[in-house]
C-alpha cells in the first residue's frame, strides 16, 4: 500500500510488483504525479537515467505505463488521516472521506507533504472554515444570491470571480496588488465586469479580519493607505495558491525531523514497524532529494517489505532481464 502517488511512489508500485506485492495508492490530489504534476508539470528534468531531458508530466505518464500491468488500486482526492495497527501487526489506514484500507505495509512517499491551500494569517479564520470560509469551490450553486468575497490575484481567483459574477448576489474580488498576474484575458474580463457593475474590485488591500457569530458575517480589509473597510459577506474564499505541509503524518507517532521522517538507510524503514518512508519525505545521513535517489530507495524498501507481505516465503533476488515481469 502506498500513500501518495508521486514519481517515487509510482516506481515503488513497480518494485513491489516485481515481488508480486500489489499496491493501493492514495493521494490527496485528484491526479497522480504529486508535486511534479501539481507544481511544475511542464518543467524539464535532466537527471533521470536514460532520459537526457523529460518533462515532469511525461515522466509521470511513463511511470503510469510502467506500473499498469501490476494493476494498482487508486484512491484519489482523499487524504490519509490516521493509521491504526491491528493485533497481527498489519495496518488499517483511514482517509478524510472515511475510506478504510487494510494493508500489510504502509509506504509513505509523500514528497514534501500535502499541497494544501495557502491560508491568510488571520485570527479566528479556522473558526469559520465550513461556516462561510472555504478554500475551494466544489458546488458553485451554494453561492446563489449570496454575498461572496474572493481574495487573491492569480488565475483561480480571476476564474472564479468571473463565474460567480452571474451567480452570487454580490461578488467582491480583493487583491493586495494593483495588477493581476493571472491570465491577461481573465484579468481583462474581471476589469470589464467591474466596470459593468457586476462585481466589486478592491485592489491594494489585504484581508485582516473575519467576523460573525455562528457563521461568517463580514470581513475587514486594510488598504495600502491603512484605511479600513468592512464588507458584509456570507462567504469568503481565499485563493492564494498551494503550499506544502506534512499534514496528518505528524499525528502518526512517527519521529519527525525538520519536516522529514528519519529512516534507516538500509531499507528506508521508519521507527514504526511495517511503515516505510521513501523519496523527499524521508531523511538520513547523506540524503539527496533527487527523484533518482527515491527510485533506489523504492527498490530497497520493496525487498525489505516482502517479509511482511509474504512471511512464509523466502525472497529470491531476480533480474527482469532474466525473468521478465511477473503477473499479479
Amino acid at each position, binding site marked *: 500500500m502506498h500513500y501518495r502517488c508521486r514519481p517515487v511512489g509510482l516506481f515503488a508500485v513497480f518494485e513491489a510488483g516485481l515481488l508480486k506485492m500489489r499496491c493501493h495508492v492514495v493521494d490527496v490530489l485528484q491526479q497522480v504525479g504529486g508535486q511534479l504534476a501539481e*507544481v511544475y508539470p511542464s*518543467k524539464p528534468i535532466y537527471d533521470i537515467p536514460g532520459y537526457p531531458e523529460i518533462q515532469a508530466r511525461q515522466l509521470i505518464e511513463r511511470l503510469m505505463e510502467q506500473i499498469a500491468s501490476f494493476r494498482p488500486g487508486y484512491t484519489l482526492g482523499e487524504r490519509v488521516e490516521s493509521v491504526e495497527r491491528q493485533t497481527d501487526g498489519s495496518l488499517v489506514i483511514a482517509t478524510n472521506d472515511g475510506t478504510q484500507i487494510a494493508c500489510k505495509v504502509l509506504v509513505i512517499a509523500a514528497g514534501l507533504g500535502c499541497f494544501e491551500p495557502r491560508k491568510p494569517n488571520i485570527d479566528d479564520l479556522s473558526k469559520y472554515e465550513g461556516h462561510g470560509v472555504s478554500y475551494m469551490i466544489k458546488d458553485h450553486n451554494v453561492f446563489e444570491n449570496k454575498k461572496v468575497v474572493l481574495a487573491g490575484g492569480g488565475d483561480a481567483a480571476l476564474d472564479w470571480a468571473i463565474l460567480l459574477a452571474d451567480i452570487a448576489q454580490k461578488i467582491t474580488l480583493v487583491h493586495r496588488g494593483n495588477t493581476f498576474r493571472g491570465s491577461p484575458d481573465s484579468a481583462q474580463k474581471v476589469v470589464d465586469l467591474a466596470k459593468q457593475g457586476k462585481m466589486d474590485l478592491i485592489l491594494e488591500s489585504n484581508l485582516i479580519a473575519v467576523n460573525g457569530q455562528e457563521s461568517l458575517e463580514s470581513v475587514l480589509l486594510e488598504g495600502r493607505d491603512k484605511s479600513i473597510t468592512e464588507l458584509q459577506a456570507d462567504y469568503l474564499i481565499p485563493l492564494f495558491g*498551494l503550499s506544502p505541509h506534512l499534514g496528518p503524518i505528524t499525528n502518526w507517532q512517527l519521529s519527525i525531523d525538520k519536516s522529514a521522517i528519519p529512516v534507516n538507510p538500509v531499507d528506508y524503514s521508519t521507527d514504526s514497524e511495517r511503515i516505510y518512508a521513501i523519496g523527499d519525505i524521508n531523511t538520513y545521513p547523506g540524503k539527496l532529494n533527487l527523484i533518482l535517489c527515491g527510485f533506489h530507495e523504492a527498490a530497497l524498501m520493496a525487498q525489505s517489505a516482502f517479509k511482511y507481505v509474504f512471511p512464509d516465503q523466502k525472497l529470491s533476488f531476480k533480474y527482469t532481464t532474466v525473468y521478465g515481469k511477473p503477473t499479479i
Partner: protein
Amino acid sequence: MINITIQNIEEETAVLDVQQFEGHSLMEALKSSGYDLLAACGGMALCASCRIEIEKGIGALAEPFGQELDTLDVLPDAAISSRLSCQLKVNQEMDGMHIRIPKS
C-alpha cells in the same frame, strides 16, 4: 566575505558568511548552512516555501520580476520586503544584509 545577518523561524539571529556560495542562490546557501527552508519546488519560484523577508539592504537587490513576481503577488501577506531566496543570487552587494525567515 559576504556577511548576512539571519533571523531563523525560532527568532534566533546569527551572522553567516555566504562568500563560498557566490553565484549560487541564497536558498541553496541557507539550506546548505542548515536553515530550515522547504524549497519544495527546488528553486523554480513556484512554491514560495523559500520566502524570506529582507529587513535591511533591500536596495542592493534587483526588483523581482517574472515568475518570482507572479508567485509573490498571490501570497496573502507578502510585503515589499518579501523575496523568494531561490531567485536571489549571492553577490558582494549582499554584504551587510539582514534577512528573516518567516514561519510558514
